[in-house]
């Protein structure tokens, strides 16, 4: 799995669920401030990552994921080999 693959999945998920242009989403995009995403949106993203990459995201860890880049980095760091 490459960084680009994970980034693509996150961007596609957010564009679909939040109804925003995919071009508006890059690694620096902040969920809350830039995409108006709320806690339910973030829970769904976390579940998408768990289902697709086998990672487990605790409540504590989730609070530190604030940008698209944070989410991608978390998956790359925690995904089972």
């Amino acid at each position, binding site marked *: 799995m490459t960084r680009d693959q994970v980034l693509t999945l996150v961007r596609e998920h957010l564009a679909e669920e939040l*109804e925003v242009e995919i071009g508006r989403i890059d690694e620096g995009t902040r969920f809350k401030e830039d995409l108006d995403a*709320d806690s*339910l949106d973030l*829970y*769904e993203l976390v*579940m998408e990552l768990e289902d697709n990459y086998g990672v487990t995201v605790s409540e504590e860890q989730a609070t530190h994921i604030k940008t698209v880049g944070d989410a991608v980095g978390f998956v790359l760091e925690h995904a089972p080999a």
Partner: protein
Amino acid sequence: MAGDRAVTVALDGYGAEQGFDVLEAGARLAAADGIGVRVFGPRRALGLDGVAGIEVLDTADHIGNDEDAVRAVRAKKESSVVRAARDVAEGDSDALVSCGSTGATMAAATFGLRRLKGVQRPALAVQLPVPGKPVLFLDVGANVEVRAQHLVQFAFLGAAFSHAVLEVENPSVGLLTVGEESGKGREEVVEAHRLLGKASGIDFAGNVEGRDLPAAKADVVVTDGFTGNVALKLLEGTAKTVAAAVGDAARSNPMAAAGGLLLKPALDGLRRDLHPDTTGGAILLGLRGIAVVGHGSSGAEGIANAVRLAARCAEVDAVGRTAALLAEGGAGRAALAAEGDG
């Protein structure tokens, strides 16, 4: 519904406060109506093996009322309500019913079935048993805090359900607040009034006040989950207290008792209409599947009615019709965001 099979409901086999016997009886009543029921619960305790139309999927784990709902749903993938929600998501059932923890049912349904495209927050709706003209009331507890866009979406969700499931032609939608004038209420309510006033596809009746709820001034009444829950419990408590007072008065002297006997048949019918078991429970609107939250205290008839309500939602394609109304009215997330910016 998948293929030609009968409409099928995934029923959480835990959570009925009156025990497995009552849940079993409720499942049998629903199945006798021709509804397929897949029960996720303890096979031996339920005693439903071999009953026509019922399939028991042995499930040992469940989520209790005292557990953190979201955390438990994420952790307990094999619990009854999570399995039942998954059964709907995977197409083996058409709708979910649980009389267990409301929070766990909402979380399992929201995560398992997912929100309809463009829906920001699902809302919990109940039918207020106003004699002669039931009122659909939402949100009664899913969202303690809301934005104006959420209230607008609740209006569309409620109108779609009222039309599709309750067969109300062109249902009127009221916004619950503290005065009839458009400027009355909190900021988000005033903004929701503005947005609904120019929305197409629904019949916005303007603001309604608390006293208008039991008067059925609108077919659908929309509010935030905190206000809705307080109002619902207040109505239930008031109805119970008044009913008890009427009973006491009717027994207070021989003349009153005689009058009470004459009124009894009519009052029994009214009591049945007003009983929470009659409506089948609350429905979580705004998902890509159907989820009904039955009363924990339901009797067998209440559980059967919850299953019947879920089955009816599937039969009339309540989800598809809700999505269509949201699209027609421009009430999706992106459209409302653009409206707010404009």
